[in-house]
């Protein structure tokens, strides 16, 4: 999953994400509208009620007409032809505005209990001379009952006229949805409602899942680059995270404000219809921009979290750190000042300051001086005690510091010390004595070990000389028989192996105990490397190993004994010859940085290396468990001992079959 960025670009993912979020938001909004308000935002029961209400008007009109002994005047207006609506003209008012209740005219003509409760303020007044009023708005599909005209009556009352359109019988759909047939439009919407009510929440949920998945992919891809390892920081990721929250939050808010005002203007019914498309487009664009911005911010958060220690990339952290640094600097400088003064002087100074403050306090508050004498004697006694305690403590301290510094043997003079100090001093003396004995023992045992190995090896060498010589003589005897010659060959090989082993053993023991005198001098690393390549080139090629070297153009010098440095190289190169997988490349790199010269040897091991790097450097440990190859497992141990004796370091690492040795030396 972490390679997702290889399959899809981050930009494509981000766009897909933004689109999904937008669609999801639309769906959620739709669902919310359904749930809360219905399709026509201003009506509490949605489109179905709208249709019902149309039927309700018709009933109401008929009822009113009967009550007044009149009839509904219907007249066909040309402009309504084909819409499926007929209209009746009612001299009166349909409104839900309670303000109209104040008008006496309506109270009189109140139509008690005959109409549904929803239409509590639905009142009529059929005038003597019905007037016609036809609004253009009606055709545009606006609320029909909000168009009215008022007329001041002679009796001081107001007469309102409105036009109500209603269908008779089955609605006439001949005008069709796209020809301004409001009824057809309403019916179509109403037909969709049950589907949309189910589909929109499900769609929203699906889109939520898709969005989450895309976001997850995007977070995986965030900070990665095609074909490269690691997490990369772009410009966005460098912005401190808390600052980014503020910036992004502000921008999102701005977008939201523009969105709201756009939506607001859209909801106003009298805006010209043709702008609606543009307003919708703008709203979509703004939503999209907001989503993209949010996604980019989330990605930068993801990168910062992936990088680890994300809190470091915050303004707050930086400020806190600055403060901490200032405090630390202050502390260390004050500590340095304190350290530069001798410890006993410091304590005396403290004593002096306290004494002065006490004396000052007494002089101010104890004016009659009764306490002053007592205090004065107390101070003299205290000062004397302090003097002696510091003298004894000084001896202990000095001895302990000296012992810690170079492990030298100490002896503290306990004369005149009180009991506790004497105990402490004797304990220190005992520790020092024990340490000296242990050191001497260790030195002796190390020396004996080296001597033992050297002497035993020398004693082995003499019989070995005979063995090698007589094997050689036997070979010269031209012994008949294939088997005999085969055995001789084994004897020859094994005796030489034994010889090499003994030589290496002596060297390893000397190198490990530091029994070698080094003549340190400047060594040209490039020349050394080229010399070793020359020495080993053919043997490597015979074993099918291609050697690749990288070294800087300029000369690099390091500080070492050239003969022993060669032993190290010889051992490491021999290792490559012996243990590298034929048909692979081996690398030797020379680098120089920060005053260090570094050689890196890398090769692919022939045998699986199922032991740790530390174990490999132990004496007599080899990478192959069967131990049937040449070599004795001393090479790396010798190389490391020699390197360390020349103030260098040798690090070994094993990564699968990749075997890597890093030699580091001080640059000259």
């Amino acid at each position: 999953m972490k390679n997702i960025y290889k399959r899809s670009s981050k930009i494509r993912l981000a766009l897909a994400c933004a689109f999904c979020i937008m669609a999801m938001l639309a769906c959620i909004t739709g669902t919310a509208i359904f749930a809360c308000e219905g399709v026509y935002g201003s009506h509490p029961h949605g489109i179905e009620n709208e249709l019902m209400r149309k039927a309700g008007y018709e009933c109401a009109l008929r009822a009113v007409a009967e009550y007044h002994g009149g009839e509904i005047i219907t007249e066909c207006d040309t402009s309504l032809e084909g819409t499926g609506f007929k209209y009746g003209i009612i001299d009166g008012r349909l409104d839900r505005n309670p303000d109209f209740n104040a008008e006496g005219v309506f109270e009189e003509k109140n139509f008690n209990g005959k109409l549904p409760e929803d239409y509590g303020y639905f009142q009529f007044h059929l005038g003597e001379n019905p007037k016609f009023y036809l609004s253009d708005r009606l055709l545009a599909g606006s609320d029909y009952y909000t168009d009215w005209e008022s007329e001041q009556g002679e009796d001081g009352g107001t007469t309102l006229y409105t036009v109500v359109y209603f269908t008779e019988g089955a609605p006439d759909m001949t005008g069709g949805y796209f020809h301004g047939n409001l009824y057809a439009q309403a019916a179509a919407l109403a037909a969709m409602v049950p589907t949309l009510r189910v589909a929109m929440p499900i769609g929203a949920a699906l889109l939520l899942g898709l969005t989450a998945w895309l976001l997850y992919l995007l977070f995986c891809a965030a900070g990665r680059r095609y074909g490269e390892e690691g997490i990369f920081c772009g410009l966005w990721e460098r912005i401190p995270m808390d600052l980014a929250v503020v910036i992004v939050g502000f921008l999102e808010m701005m977008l939201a404000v523009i969105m709201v005002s756009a939506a607001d203007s859209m909801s106003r019914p009298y805006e010209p219809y043709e702008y609606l498309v543009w307003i919708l487009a703008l709203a979509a664009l703004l939503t999209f921009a907001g989503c993209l911005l949010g996604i980019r911010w989330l990605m930068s958060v993801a990168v910062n979290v992936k990088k680890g220690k994300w809190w470091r990339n915050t303004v707050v952290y930086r400020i806190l750190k600055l403060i901490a640094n200032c405090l630390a600097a202050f502390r260390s400088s004050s500590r340095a000042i304190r350290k530069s003064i001798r410890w006993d002087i410091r304590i005396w100074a403290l004593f002096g300051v306290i004494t002065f403050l006490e004396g000052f306090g007494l002089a101010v508050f104890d004016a009659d001086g009764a306490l002053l004498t007592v205090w004065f004697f107390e101070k003299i006694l205290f000062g004397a005690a302090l003097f002696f305690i510091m003298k004894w403590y000084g001896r202990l301290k000095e001895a302990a510091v000296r012992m810690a510094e170079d492990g030298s043997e100490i002896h503290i003079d306990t004369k005149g010390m009180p009991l506790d100090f004497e105990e402490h001093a004797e304990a220190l003396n005992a520790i020092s004595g024990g340490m000296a004995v242990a050191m001497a023992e260790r030195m002796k045992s190390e020396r004996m070990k080296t001597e033992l190995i050297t002497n035993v090896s020398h004693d082995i060498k003499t019989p070995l000389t005979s063995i090698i010589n007589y094997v050689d003589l036997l070979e010269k005897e031209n012994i008949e028989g294939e088997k005999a010659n085969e055995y001789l060959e084994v004897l020859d090989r094994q005796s030489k192996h034994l010889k090499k082993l003994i030589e290496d053993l002596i060297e390893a023991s000397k190198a490990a105990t530091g029994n070698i005198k080094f003549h340190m001098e400047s060594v040209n690393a490039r020349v050394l490397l080229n010399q070793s390549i020359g020495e080993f080139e053919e043997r490597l090629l015979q074993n099918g190993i291609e050697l690749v070297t990288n070294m800087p153009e300029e000369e690099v010098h390091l500080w070492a004994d050239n003969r022993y440095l060669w032993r190290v190289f010889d051992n490491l190169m021999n290792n490559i010859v012996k243990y590298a997988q034929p048909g692979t490349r081996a690398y030797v790199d020379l680098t120089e940085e920060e005053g260090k010269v570094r050689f890196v040897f890398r090769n692919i091991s022939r045998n699986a290396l199922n032991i740790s790097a530390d174990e490999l450097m132990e004496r007599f440990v080899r990478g192959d468990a069967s131990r049937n190859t040449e070599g004795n497992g001393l090479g790396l141990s010798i190389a490391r001992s020699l390197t360390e004796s020349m103030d260098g370091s040798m690090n070994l690492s094993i990564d699968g079959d990749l075997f890597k040795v890093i030699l580091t030396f001080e640059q000259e």
Partner: protein
Amino acid sequence: MNRILICDDEPDILSALRIYLESEGMEVVTAENGQVALDIMSGEEGGDIHLILMDVMMPEMDGITAMAQIRKISNVPIIMLTAKSEDADKVVGLTVGADDYVTKPFNPVELMARVKSQLRRYTMLGSATGAGSSEDADILIIGGIELRDRAKEVYLDGEPVSLTPLEYDILKCLMTHRGEVLSPKDIYEEIWQEPMVGAESTVAVHIRHLREKLEYDSANPRYLKAVWGRGYKMDDIH
């Protein structure tokens, strides 16, 4: 007929050495410790001995003491046989009067070559001549290596060695600058007569080939020495 005195406390080594030397047509006298060797050298037979192979660690009198005593009465070449491979022991031996040393366990072929080389120098060039630098500019000699420039021939312990022209040039270059450390760059530019670019390990490869032809133990070269990180040099052999 060359007479060789072998001095070692190990009878098996004595007899092995006897077999080798006698197979090369030499006469062998043996001594089991330093004292016996000293007695032989100071006795009547002493004048007939052409070379001594001397072990270092022996009972009664060790090799170093014996050598010091023998040097007082004879300047016969002495080759030290030692199980100690420490530099200090070699230095002591060579200072006391050994002409060469071989460390145990030794390679018989190498030992024979050194014996022959010392014998040749002692009997042919005269015992007074030390390690040979010839007056003649045509012939360059270092230890057992003899380079005859006009004939373009190289001999190792008297045996001709076949070298490629490049190897010959490198050898000659090193022999003329004896005792000096020459960097691979110096050698390259001297022989190829062009700046060394991208051929930095070429010289090392040729040196290795030379070493295989001229050294008995190419891992521990006597003549073609590498100063790692600097270059190569050939020193006079003591």
